[in-house]
């Protein structure tokens, strides 16, 4: 599946300034792994040592928080948009 991934401002230095990059995969996790393979330094920022998405990185699939879906295993479709959004402190 070919999807668009939106990169947040603090990570754009790793995508040559690009706000979006193209990714490929069957699930959200696979898409993120795919873009990490093609942009040096991104993997360390998004994934922890165990390979899980960092706990304060929220991922949205077409404006829906994937925690409301099936987490990183949520399947994606062609043309979907995945957004990487740092968690918001507060409360």
């Amino acid at each position: 599946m070919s999807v668009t991934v939106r990169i947040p401002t603090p990570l754009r230095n790793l995508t040559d300034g690009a706000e979006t990059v193209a990714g490929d995969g069957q699930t959200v996790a696979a898409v993120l792994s795919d873009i990490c393979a093609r942009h040096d330094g991104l993997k360390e920022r998004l994934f922890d040592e165990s390979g899980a998405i960092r706990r304060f990185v929220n991922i949205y699939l077409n404006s829906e928080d994937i925690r409301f879906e099936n987490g990183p295993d949520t399947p994606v479709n062609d043309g979907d948009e995945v957004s990487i959004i740092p968690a918001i402190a507060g409360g």
Partner: protein
Amino acid sequence: MAEQNVYFKGLKCRECAKSFPADVLYVCDECFGPLEVDYDYDAIGKVLSRNTIESRQPNMWRYRELLPIAGSVTVGEHVGYTPLVKADRLAEALGVREVWVKNDTVNYPTLSFKDRVVSVALSRAREFGFTTVGCASTGNLANSVAANAASAGLKAYVLIPSDLEIGKVLGSFVFGATVVGINGTYDNVNRLVSEVAGQHGWAMVNVNMRPYYAEGSKTMGFEIAEQLGWQLPDAVVSPMAGGSLICKIDKAFKELVKLGLVEEKTSAIYGAQAKGCNPIIDMVKSESDWIKPVRTPDTIVKSLAIGDPADGIYAAATMRNTGGWGEDPTDEETVAGIRLLAETTGIFAETAGGVTVAATKRLVNSGKLDADSSVVLCITGNGLKTKEAIAGEFREISHIEPTLDEFNAYLDELKNQEEVALHVSHSTNSHATA
């Protein structure tokens, strides 16, 4: 006055441990984790003793070496050191050996534990030179920011969900703060406030002041230990909204152990949320690794209605690592909890207190909390702010003429009603056990 010693070295990421200066920072630029204050415990250990603490004024600043401000306390110097009340009748009702109530319903000046965090946040904000402050709040925090800002001559903007209890709205408005009601949930308000902090450069206490702000909650833990005669309780039950408080109580206990001020012991930390907004309890009960946010909280316990709690994963870890657990009582149980606390201790708690009492009851009944323990209930807010929650529980008061005859006739009438009620409850009980 002599220059104050500074006992914190900077900030540190709670996730990846990257170090940062003690500046207006709150998110790690590496992994997006939250930042936490990094203390110099060796230096603190050299100056802080039980005697030193006991010689100081009865307020939360008696533990000032363990709080992250660099100079003098400029906001909230009278906050804290609320009573720790031994509650024998409540213990009996709950079926626990010993119950203590940490009574922050009478915290100064705005009758909730939030004065603790705000005192630190605003004192620190002034050190950074801020003159405008604010917050995202479910009510108590807004009240505290508004009042403490007023006393310090700071301008305050408090943003709240538009459907809060009238007591909580008035309790911000009266201090001259700009109160903005937002159409949406707390999580919507929070997101907006983080954008406001970025664009306007204000000190939003629970966003860009958060590493400093959150430390104020530790004082509840310090006080509990000191008031128990410098020992840690077997268990603590605390309400959870964002989840920060139970983490900081646990941290406070560990700091006291590290500094040799109390004997080493693991207090089991239990968390309480309302059934209608229970993301952290759900994470614990389902043994999940991540928080599933509650999109639309549905509970009378508005002060705890945070669907995407910032410290949720840490709160869950605190419960797991200390041998605690969590419970999420219904609104009906919460109202019963408010009444039970009031009728057995004389303490009128807000809905979050009702949740805490009701959760304790569940925990004891299920055996998750050992009945043979000494338990501290953290009662964090005052019932006069959430009167709506129990208004429906009571009949209108009776009106009589000012004569002794009428009063005695009224007493007879009451006695009859009680007998009827007793009879009904007896027959109900015999049905139940039949």
